């Protein structure tokens, strides 16, 4: 049955000359799982919002969207609220009440259901999604992953026929993101719900999706099964390559007549069929000796947030070499951000020593510490914006250098806009510009790639490399294994308040079995030292059958 029919949909935002959607035709059948993908600004969120009347943006619109045959604009509000569920990007804003059970019941209260019906549905949702153990908690105490799950459960309690999800995992760490997507897959399989999901990290989505719809500049560029995308990646869909799973990227980079692999497991099999090596190919690793004073030197650092609670850092000892990109990885709650803040002097350890470029951080005056010495780019870059325009943001730090930095970070096009009116990636660049204007010798980055799309990630990585080349040191904390493998010189893993591993990037990842890149997991049986897709592709080309 055709559940959603979009016919020749055109849409333009007010005061915008270009159309955000130009002639989209799309039919979705009941029970399908559709992944909607494309670069930032391709119109995927705009399209998704046209499927729910309450959220459709204002603007000029031509064409029709039908839900079960009825034009969506004529659907009554109650049916729409009930039948079309919508999960948005940032769970922190989507959860509106103070208690978990109240949030679960929020939609049901709107529908005006009776006590017993509500009680049943809330109970069902709590047990289906495994919420029982934190059912009575305050929403304030939940992690990002729990909040997003609660948000989903609250929508599911209304018994929708269609579930729309707008980049639901962009604010989550990779583990929580995989869990969340596994739950979506389970809902789809067990309840036969129609799922339409936009996402720019497709590693976990493609293996589950029935169909992939690629949007490009407001048009449908491809609409096919996930596997078929693989063949097109080296051709007309090359712009999409960055957001595809590693297996597909390697497949597209090497080229093959075999069917396209989607998962690590399939990728591994495909690789064995494609190349011919008698024994694992190792490569000569460059010597990674760095002399001189480390940029950050931490010795037996202890830290805890509250007197009674257990230590977050338990004698952390770590050296960050000068002029390198250093990445600190680790699971949730391992204390990565705490380690970064302690290193940057934002938190004061109760024991141990932190030195920046050979000077005790406690003895550097605040004014000097964060001017021309160290600077921190926080996770929420918005916390840095105080001015009315991007230009003023830069000029408050350094009037003379503002233009130069704007040029370098490609900010010139929107210098006179309000910093909140530019896109997420652009905000990140503005914030980085602001931070760089303090001319730090040491740049601290807290989860810099959260919410970034792959294209911007790549240019951001380049920028960090350039900074290092000019003599600065970058210390970042990240969950993003792929990004660290590509950009960092040295990686360390924090676990239980101390370092569990600390090595140059290649040996770091090739020694790990689980905590490594997908490319490495695909190829480690033949190319143990290949950690990025490019490494694997290059080695594949050399060793082809």
């Amino acid at each position, binding site marked *: 049955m055709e559940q959603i029919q979009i016919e020749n949909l055109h849409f333009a935002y007010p005061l915008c000359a270009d159309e955000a959607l130009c002639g989209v035709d799309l039919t979705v059948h009941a029970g399908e799982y559709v992944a909607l993908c494309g670069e930032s600004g391709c119109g995927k969120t705009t399209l998704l919002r046209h499927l*729910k009347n*309450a*959220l459709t943006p204002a603007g000029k619109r031509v064409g029709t969207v039908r839900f079960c045959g009825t034009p969506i604009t004529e659907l009554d*509000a109650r049916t729409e*609220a*009930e039948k079309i*569920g*919508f999960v*948005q*990007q*940032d769970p*922190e*804003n*989507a*959860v*509106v*009440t*103070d*208690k978990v*059970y109240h949030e679960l019941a*929020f*939609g*049901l*209260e*709107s*529908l*005006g*259901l009776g*006590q017993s019906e*509500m*009680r049943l549905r*809330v109970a069902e949702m709590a047990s289906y999604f495994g919420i029982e153990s934190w059912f009575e908690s*305050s*929403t*304030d105490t939940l992690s990002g992953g729990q909040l997003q799950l609660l*948000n989903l459960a*609250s*929508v599911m309690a*209304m018994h929708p026929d269609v579930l729309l999800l707008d980049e639901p995992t962009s604010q989550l760490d990779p583990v929580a993101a995989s869990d969340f997507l596994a739950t979506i897959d389970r809902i789809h399989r067990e309840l036969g719900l129609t799922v339409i999901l936009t996402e720019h990290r497709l590693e976990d989505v493609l293996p589950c999706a029935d169909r992939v719809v690629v949007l490009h500049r407001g048009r449908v560029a491809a609409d096919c099964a996930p596997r078929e995308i693989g063949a097109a990646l080296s051709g007309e869909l090359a712009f999409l390559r960055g957001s595809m799973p590693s297996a597909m990227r390697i497949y597209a980079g090497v080229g093959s007549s075999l069917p396209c692999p989607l998962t690590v497991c399939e990728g591994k099999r495909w690789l064995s069929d494609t190349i011919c090596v008698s024994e694992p190919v190792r490569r000569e690793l460059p010597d990674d000796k760095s002399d001189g004073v480390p940029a950050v030197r931490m010795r037996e650092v202890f830290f805890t947030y509250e007197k009674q609670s257990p230590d977050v850092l338990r004698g952390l000892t770590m050296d960050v070499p000068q002029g390198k990109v250093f990445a600190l990885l680790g699971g949730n709650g391992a204390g990565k951000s705490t380690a970064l803040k302690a290193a*940057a002097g*934002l938190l004061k350890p109760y024991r141990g020593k932190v030195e920046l470029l050979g000077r005790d951080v406690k003895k550097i005056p*605040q*004014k000097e*510490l*964060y*001017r021309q010495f160290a*600077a*921190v780019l*926080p*996770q*929420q870059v*918005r*916390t840095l*914006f*105080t001015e009315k325009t991007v230009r003023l943001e830069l000029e408050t*730090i350094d009037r003379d250098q503002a233009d130069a930095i704007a040029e370098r970070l490609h900010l010139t096009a929107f210098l006179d806009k309000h910093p*909140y009116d530019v896109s997420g990636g652009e905000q990140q660049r503005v914030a980085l510009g*602001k931070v760089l204007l*303090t001319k730090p010798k040491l740049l*601290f980055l807290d989860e810099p790639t959260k919410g970034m799309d792959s294209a911007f990630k790549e240019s951001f990585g380049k920028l960090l490399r350039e900074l290092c080349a000019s003599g600065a040191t970058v210390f970042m904390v990240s969950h993003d294994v792929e990004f660290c493998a590509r950009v960092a010189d040295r990686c360390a893993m924090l676990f239980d308040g101390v370092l569990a591993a600390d090595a140059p990037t290649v040996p770091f990842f090739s020694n790990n079995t689980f905590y490594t890149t997908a490319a490495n997991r695909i190829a480690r049986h033949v190319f143990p030292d290949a950690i990025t897709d490019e490494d694997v592709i290059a080695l594949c080309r050399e060793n082809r059958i």
Partner: protein
Amino acid sequence: MRSAFTKSHPVLNFLFFGSVVAFGMVFFHPVFLGVSFVAALAYSVRLRGRGTLRLMRYLLPTLLVVVFLGAAFNHYGVTTLFVLPNGNRVTLEAIVHSFATGGMVLTVFLWFTCYDAVVTSDKFLHVFGRVFPTGALLISMTLRFIPLLTRRMHKIFEGQKGIGYSGSKLRNALHALSILVTWSLENAVDVSDSMKSRGYGLRGRTSYTRFLWTRRDILLCAAILALDALTVAGVIVGQTRAMYNPFISLPAITPFSYVLYVGYALLCFMPLALDLTEEHKWNRSR
């Protein structure tokens, strides 16, 4: 803490605290004051343990100060204990009156410490939501956003500090506040989308509750109302009056007085009795 009263229906909790606080604020009669004080102290200690004892370390000296000041500055009454060097009299009536006033404030204060431990925000919302559903949602949202905004403010200060603006100066504090406002207004769009997409604004909104009326709740509510009625009857016949000026005068003790005293004690000690009975039963059932 295992507490039967805490787990009862919120309406029962409200009815109880409404009664004892209202009576506590108007009764000056030493018997009624004493009963209420002992009950409040005992229940507060049971609910909050050391917290209340620590609190009493500050409250008792305060009471003594109140009595001292009352006696030093009020000179009415007929029983002169001694005369101050400046010629003012210190009277028994003034001391007893200040003692009663201080005791009354202390008692009501103790009842509020119990209220705080028993009536959680969701109980309050349940009772309030019946009368005023939108207001209840508003409070629930406020309770969600206060910690959220506090956390954001903290992040802003940290972010600003990391690029060299420490939070100490007024200019920096104002900047931080302006960031918080802009950021939150921006997010308000998402919040309203989330509410709209879950049907907020449809007619006939209901309010979900986790609390169920049990037969015991109904019986206990009836008991509270009956005891309230008895006490009010006592007020009407003048059994609760107490005069401290110019001389101490209490109503004559009749058989009905004893009924009133016992009734009032039953009311004030009800939660404690409930808790102890339940605990006893639970221990026995093991």
